[in-house]
């Protein structure tokens, strides 16, 4: 087969580019802890009352001697619970793990402008961990179409300084 020398060169360059892109994703995974959600747990979406999601909200846990927080969120037509009626309040500089599921249809859970962004799928629990570096507020957007009032579905995450974090609202 005849391949022009310029085209040969171009194909080699293309392979180099592809290798670079794949390497950049792996580098993010390994060195920067930029992970994606995986296969965590299936759940019966019609009986969330009998699961951890019966009590949504922020919980304190101790892992490896460190205080961490777990946030259980239900995404529903057309609100985040918690998040919409009252903000999700978490401390800065602490590991926070979100567990998210939906009792009805697909939704999105996106902290606008960040990489905290996952689908909420009935029957599946999305688990993602982050550390918010500094106190600020983030808007939560539902970014998957979920029905005629989809556009009103929004919420808020409030990151407060560790010293000001009020533990009286925690879920036991």
């Amino acid at each position, binding site marked *: 087969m005849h391949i022009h020398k310029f085209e040969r060169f171009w194909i080699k360059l293309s392979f180099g580019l592809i290798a670079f892109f794949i390497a950049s994703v792996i580098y993010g995974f390994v060195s920067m802890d930029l992970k994606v959600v995986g296969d965590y747990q299936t759940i019966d979406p019609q009986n969330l009352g009998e699961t951890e999601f019966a009590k949504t909200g922020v919980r304190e846990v101790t892992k490896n001697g460190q205080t961490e927080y777990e946030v259980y969120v239900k995404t529903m037509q057309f609100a985040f619970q918690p998040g919409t009626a009252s903000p999700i309040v978490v401390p800065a500089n602490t590991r926070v793990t979100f567990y998210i599921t939906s009792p009805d249809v697909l939704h999105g859970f996106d902290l*606008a402008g960040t990489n905290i962004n996952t689908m909420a799928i009935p029957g599946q629990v999305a688990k993602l961990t982050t550390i918010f570096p500094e106190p600020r507020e983030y808007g939560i957007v539902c970014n998957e179409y979920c029905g005629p009032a989809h556009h009103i579905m929004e919420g808020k995450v409030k990151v407060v300084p560790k010293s000001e974090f009020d533990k009286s609202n925690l879920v036991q």
Partner: protein
Amino acid sequence: MTFIHKYPKAAKVSKANFIVAFIALAIGGFFGFIQALHRTDVFRGFVNSGEYYTLLTGHGVLLALIFTTFFIAGLFVWGVTRSLDREPENMAYTWSWFWLMVIGTVMAAFTILGGLVPDSSIRAAVLYTFYPPLQAHPAFYIGLAMVVVGSWMAAADWFWSYSKWRDDNPTERIPILSFMTLFTMLMWYVCTIGLAIEVVGLLIPWSLGWVVEIEPLLPRTLFWFFGHAVVYFWLLPAYYVWYAILPKLSGGRLFSDSMTRIVFIIFLLLSTPVGYHHQYADAGISVGFKFYAMATTMMLLLPSLMTLFTVIASMEHGAKQRGGKGYFAWISKLPWNNPAFVGCALAGIMFAAGGFSGMINAGMNINLLIHNTIWIPGHFHLTVGTAVALTFMAVTYWLLPQLTGRKLKFKTLALIQPYSWFLGMTLMSNAMHRAGLAGVPRRTAEPEFNTNAMNFEPIFGTMSEMKWQIAIGGTILLISLILFLWVVISSWMAGQKSEKPVDDHIPEPLSGVEHTPAILDNMKLWFALALILVVLAYSFPLWEMIQDGIFSPGALPRPS
């Protein structure tokens, strides 16, 4: 003598397909214009925000599924007939697939438009991805299934022509136009397996109420089995135009026959196993499978980069035939006053830009920053909305005279059209990309925060400037669309009749078929390999999903 004089029957089929395609383009494009004004809050008088999703569904289905499928069918009927030098084998069969697709289209469109009638029970505001448990009227799913079955029959029609031609020409190589058609349709057969299982096996029985519960993740996964390859089903016919016709329009010849074939083979092999890259943010799929899909997706850069090389090399050759010189100066010698060339060339430039944002989408962890934000429609308005749609419009200026025997009218308007599409899309899509980086979501009637007094924080530019670029860009696109339809309708109805309304000769490639290894034409081999790669990518995760029952963990249907 041009196409219609040599093959009057095939010309009629092509034209019928183009008519449906352009009606879908007109309605779907108009819906897009309304959406651009509505979601930017520039003008909300057409519909209320609840009805917005009906228009959004219409926009997606009519443009992404109907316009493309019918245009591709018309284009391929032209190419197969011409390159094999034979009319379709049986006209009753050919018309039966056309009418099956038309009836399916009308059914789906009817259920979607039902959403605009107050209190109608016939609704299908489920968007073109129709994820359950949001449920549409059964006629929506049945209509779409009929379109897909019609497209399978169309592909079979072209394989039939090919096998008859092969009987008469046992030693000839597959002509390049037919080669590209057949490999595109082989890819289409592979990827539509997922869609057929989803729609016929799950959604139709569920929408008819035969089963009540449905597991949302399984149909979503089957949809994306199909859903990324469908992108290549739109794109490969644009590549077909860039490989076979664009070099001729630039005054030159295709660079390499064998590289063309290799590119189409790679697309057949890799288009389907990449589907999980639309599910990077889904729980319920292991990171390992997502990683496999990511690596495969990155490999798909190769055939697109090779296409970039061939397109530019062919254009440079064309420009040098026209007296062009130097490293870059030759660009000015290209026929920038020929609407068919200009449309294809601008579409190619936009595709390069869309390719760059696509690389971000493919990067599994970087993707989370823009997943389901308006960046994504910004990306695919460059790829399908420009690379594909503008190429189709541009090649229409060259094909229509061949199919009607009439010269193109209003050449100046036809020339303004691709430039204005390019301008409108530049405004709209750059703003969509940047707004997406700030977290502005896609698929929504009102992206602003309403109750929490929050704001999106753009990294570059201001929210109001992006909003106006989207609204103005969308308006320019509507004007460009009207220009296109005006030129097409007037040429079709009243263009000057001529024996040779356009120069339809396609020259031989620079590096011809004599350099092309025979194994590249072995369709059975490549089809089998494509199936194996799909089984490797999908069998285990799908098995994991159905182990606890096909409809479990089940969710209840919700009205759309």
